[in-house]
């Protein structure tokens, strides 16, 4: 693999956005995801290879997050570095030269205004090559249903932090399953467990963002 590609992957994993960014301390003054991606494209390295490097970096930091070796700040910085790469790849997505793995409709359920967990999932899922349609917080089930209608073949992710909104999550899952029985739904959030997820009728549950990626990749491979 090209050295530049390896370095891009390393920058994403460690949250090194660009040369000016002081984070992480160990990489101060070094070139970051931004500069290296530009150099790679100038050196005629294919956008697919760059995207793969970015995905690998996000995958590694996501796995370290799942093992509690790193926490939210490290994940957020990695996502920022990932976005620096993606900004350069945007034209290739637009022209269809590179393709996303699939579409993921994501939102925090009705009555719940918490977005930190949902945003972490969005970042890691995006960083692993999926397009995320983020519906935001306090998303009524009708809004989920509209989004599913407008996004054929999508997979759906529901987030909730409050015990009181788990009930709305359950209702939303059921409404989705009535109208779109083939659509796969994964749920997550602090009060949830696999048991609760299955009782609601969801297809999957994840304790952490990387688990959502595993779930999505498994479905797209099937």
């Amino acid at each position, binding site marked *: 693999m090209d050295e530049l590609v390896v370095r891009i992957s390393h920058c994403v994993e460690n949250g090194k956005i660009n040369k000016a960014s002081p984070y992480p301390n160990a990489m101060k003054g070094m070139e970051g995801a931004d500069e290296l991606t530009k150099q790679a494209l100038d050196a005629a390295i294919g956008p697919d290879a760059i995207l793969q490097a970015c995905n690998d970096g996000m995958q590694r930091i996501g796995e370290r997050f799942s093992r509690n070796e790193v926490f*939210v700040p490290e994940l957020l910085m990695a996502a920022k570095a990932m976005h620096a790469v993606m900004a350069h790849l945007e034209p290739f997505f637009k022209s269809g030269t590179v393709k996303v793995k699939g579409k993921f409709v994501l939102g925090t359920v009705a009555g719940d205004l918490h*977005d930190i967990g949902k945003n972490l999932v969005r970042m890691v899922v995006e960083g692993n090559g999926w397009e995320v349609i983020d519906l935001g917080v306090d998303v009524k089930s009708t809004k989920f249903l509209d989004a599913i209608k407008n996004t054929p073949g999508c997979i759906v992710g529901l987030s909730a932090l409050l015990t009181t909104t788990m009930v709305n999550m359950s209702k939303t899952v059921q409404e989705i399953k009535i109208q779109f029985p083939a659509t796969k739904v994964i749920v997550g959030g602090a*009060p949830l467990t696999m048991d609760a997820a299955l009782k609601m009728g969801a297809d999957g549950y994840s304790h952490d963002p990387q688990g959502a990626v595993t779930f999505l990749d498994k479905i797209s491979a099937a």
Partner: protein
Amino acid sequence: MSSLLTALKNKKILVSDGAWGTFLHQRGLQPGECPELWNITHRDDVFAIAKSYIDAGADIILTNSFGGSPSKLEHYGLQDRTAELNKTAAAISREAAGVDHLVLGSIGPTGVILMMGEVSEEALYDGFCIQAEALKKGGVDALCIETMSAVDEACLAIRAARETTDLEVACTFTFEKTVSGEYRTMMGVSPAEMVQAVKEVGVSIIGTNCGNGFDQMIDIVQEIRSIDPITPILVHANAGKPVFQDGKAVFPETPEKMAAKVGELIKSGANIIGGCCGTTPAHIQGLVHAIRVH
């Protein structure tokens, strides 16, 4: 109104209150409704919750102002009423507590992450100042900055509280057990890092709240105590991790289970003990009895 620290000296172990959020929902607060607005629209319900904890034997009650930061209230378009909602929250609990009991003004997290750069430190600090000042005006005896996970946000809130009021300040963080069995907040902060950071900016009481039940709180208190032998420790424990039963969330830890564990929690070094999500006046009554026996 006596000082919280004086009360601790006189009584050694103080009992705090239980859940507010889950209690408000039982009384009809709908998901997506602003809990703090109930201080104005459903004052009697909020007062009844405060009073139920006093009647259960709590020495201290908190205020219905957990989400009273301008950035949380902005979700409901209520950010301009920050001072009014916090002051009323304090006044309601003050009325329920009378002069014999203490009121701790609750300040919860803002929900924004400073390192993401979505909001400036100054803006967060100014918001905390408005909350602290309003809670003081409403009559609280001390402030409780709770459910924190980031050191930068917690320290801004503590500084704001100390620079705008002369009240004692408590600060509690929420820890989770990692796969390797250590305790960390979601931002990666350990109990030791919390203690060092919050004491530097002048808190009088440290502690932990929410979490996954009483057993883990005992671990966390032991860890805090091993680093800091002196500072009073406040614990507000959840009634366990909720389970989903028959379409609703149920908290598994009963008042009996909590009461049975309280001796161990005191032995670990806790000085103020109360509940968080899922706990009820029955839990607090159980704690009061168990501590009396202890």
